[in-house]
């Protein structure tokens, strides 16, 4: 009796294996792959991109699709881990994906790009800001609808030195790929400005998820920093700012687009007041952006999250390029991306030779009365 159940279980397992193990589904559709973290602790950075893709595809399919074919969405989770990202990439390539929207994290993108490059598939990321991805020239199939980190860091440094006119700056990061990369650029630019214009009094990483940050905040105070430049995401930023303000420190806090998120204000509440953060140029007045936000609210019942506008723009750009190119051929799509302007929530954009989007840059924002306002 016992072993009959085991044999049954074994057969069932084999059956399931064969069922799910099958290869690509054929079909006359345009396949748009969406890859990013959809589960795990970074899910809140990946899910808005999925929503954006879903909405764009719905709209386009309602208008007849691309090149007369329906667009099919292939959503894969990479939990922002490079080795999972390579699995995701091979899966998408195996399923015959035509273009990919993703990945979200720079590390995962780096790992997956080699596979897409071999398979000649265009990849566009709404959030991978690592400069080397376009500047190294290693990935001609990579595009992005967000400016790279060195531009952000330069903006932050220039703002601190020239607008806020401070000299002693503490540079902090969250020891992550994105945050540390940004912080290192900031440090480089600060040091390049010369010792009489800028002084990096502190350059350290904080441990995300720690229970208390008073030690590092004390250190900032002790070193006499006039401003803090922080590379990282909003959870850590809000914890640090909160502790700083509770200790009645008036130090300026300048951060990056990982912090320029409404969630930051909602979490840090009154302590968020006065915080500076760089972010993509303000698109809230752009009619397409407003429409995209409305769509999201209607479909999912909440405000869109991180990188939503960028992802929306990327999806539009990719599908538009296929339409303009007249085929899903790699070279045709690349050419279309570089030559055609496409109307997106980020404005009218097209892409340069390296893959960066022209017309997409960063601006400095400050929290005033509970909202991020662009600083002119």
């Amino acid at each position, binding site marked *: 009796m016992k072993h009959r159940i085991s044999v049954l279980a074994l057969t069932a397992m084999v059956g399931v294996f064969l069922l799910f193990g099958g290869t690509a589904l054929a079909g006359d559709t345009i396949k748009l792959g969406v890859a990013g973290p959809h*589960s*795990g*602790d970074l*899910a*809140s950075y990946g*899910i808005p991109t999925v929503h954006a893709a879903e909405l764009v595809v719905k709209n386009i399919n309602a208008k007849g699709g691309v090149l007369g074919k329906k667009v099919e969405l292939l959503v894969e989770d990479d939990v922002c881990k490079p080795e999972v990202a390579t699995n995701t990439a091979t899966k998408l390539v195996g399923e015959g994906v035509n273009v990919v929207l993703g990945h979200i994290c720079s590390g995962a993108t780096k790992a997956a790009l080699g596979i897409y490059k071999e398979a000649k598939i265009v990849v566009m990321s709404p959030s991978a800001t690592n400069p080397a991805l376009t500047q190294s020239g290693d990935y001609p199939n990579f595009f992005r609808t967000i400016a790279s980190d060195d531009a952000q860091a330069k903006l932050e440094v220039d703002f601190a030195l020239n607008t806020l006119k401070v000299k002693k700056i503490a540079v902090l990061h969250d*020891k992550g790929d994105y945050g540390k990369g940004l912080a290192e650029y900031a440090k480089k630019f600060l040091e390049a400005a010369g010792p009489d214009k800028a002084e990096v009094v502190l350059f*350290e*990483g*904080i*441990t995300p*998820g*720690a*229970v*208390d940050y*008073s*030690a*590092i905040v*004390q*250190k900032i105070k*002790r070193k006499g920093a006039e401003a803090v430049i922080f590379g990282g995401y*909003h*959870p850590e930023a*809000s*914890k640090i700012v*909160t502790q700083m303000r*509770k*200790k*009645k420190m008036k130090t300026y806090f300048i951060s990056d687009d990982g912090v320029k998120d409404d*969630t930051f204000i*909602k*979490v*840090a*509440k009154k302590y968020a007041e006065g915080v500076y953060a760089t972010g993509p140029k303000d698109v809230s007045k752009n009619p397409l952006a407003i429409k995209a936000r409305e769509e999201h609210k209607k479909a999912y019942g909440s405000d869109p999250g991180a990188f939503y506008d960028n992802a929306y723009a990327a999806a539009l750009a990719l599908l538009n390029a296929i339409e303009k190119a007249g085929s899903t051929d790699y070279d045709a799509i690349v050419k279309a991306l570089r030559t055609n302007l496409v109307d997106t929530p980020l404005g009218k954009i097209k892409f340069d030779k390296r893959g960066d989007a022209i017309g997409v840059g960063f601006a400095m924002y400050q929290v005033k009365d509970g909202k991020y306002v662009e600083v002119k």
Partner: protein
Amino acid sequence: MDYFLELFLGGLTRGSIYALIALGYTMVYGIIELINFAHGEIYMIGAFTALIVISVLTMLGWNQLAILAIATLAAIVWSSAYGFTAEKVAYKPLRNAPRLSPLISAIGVSLFLQNYVLLAQTSDFLPFPNLIPEFKFLEPLGGIVRSTEIVIYVVTAIVLVILTVLIKFTKLGKAMRATAQDRDMAMLVGVNVDRVISFTFIVGSATAALGGVLIASHIGQINFYIGFIAGIKAFVAAVLGGIGSMPGAVLGSLVLGWTESFFTGYISSDYEDVFAFLFLVLILIFRPSGILGRANTDKV
């Protein structure tokens, strides 16, 4: 001097929080020799339950202090319930299994609870309102330490006292000690071992829940993942102090908290965890059973 004091107090805050979680770890370990990986998640669930209750009651417009009290009570009740259930479902059937099986089961429970909260609630970081009142007489110390932190210290101390009294002077405490010493023998003298073990889990979870509410108020935000990191730290602290010993858990937690704080303050925040672990290794080399641990004699 100010700087040193600040770092000292910062370390005390960290240590107190670790202590509240480490106590639960050490109690469970003392009784069934299981590293309850899911303990950190119990702490996280306490924080989430409190947040849910706070949100509902705030909407109904109740008084702040009342909300805090009810939320804390709710956190304790539900965390204990989760701890109790986890024990009955995932650990009890494995009482006589090889040592590592309940450990893997605990890992499964930990992962399950994390994803359960993730799916049932959200992956976002949720702001947690600090309802701990600002005591007027503590105002002048405001620059160095705030009411919330003082409350944390005081609560930890009170909990330690209560638990020590419980273990040393009550009948249930005696039963717990007996079960920890020799389970079969305890059964022979009439101790209802199942009940004692359940009770231990309940008390441990309650302490963790309390820690959850306090730290959420202090930090101001919670997320489904906070249990894992805090759990590992608390586990290190418990081992450092001698696992199975309650004053050891508190001592280990405080030592860990101060080590991290001072290292960050005087050297670098980059390697604070590295230093904490190296410190642990060093202590264990010279005292293989932890600072206050009883040296385990092996009988052949």
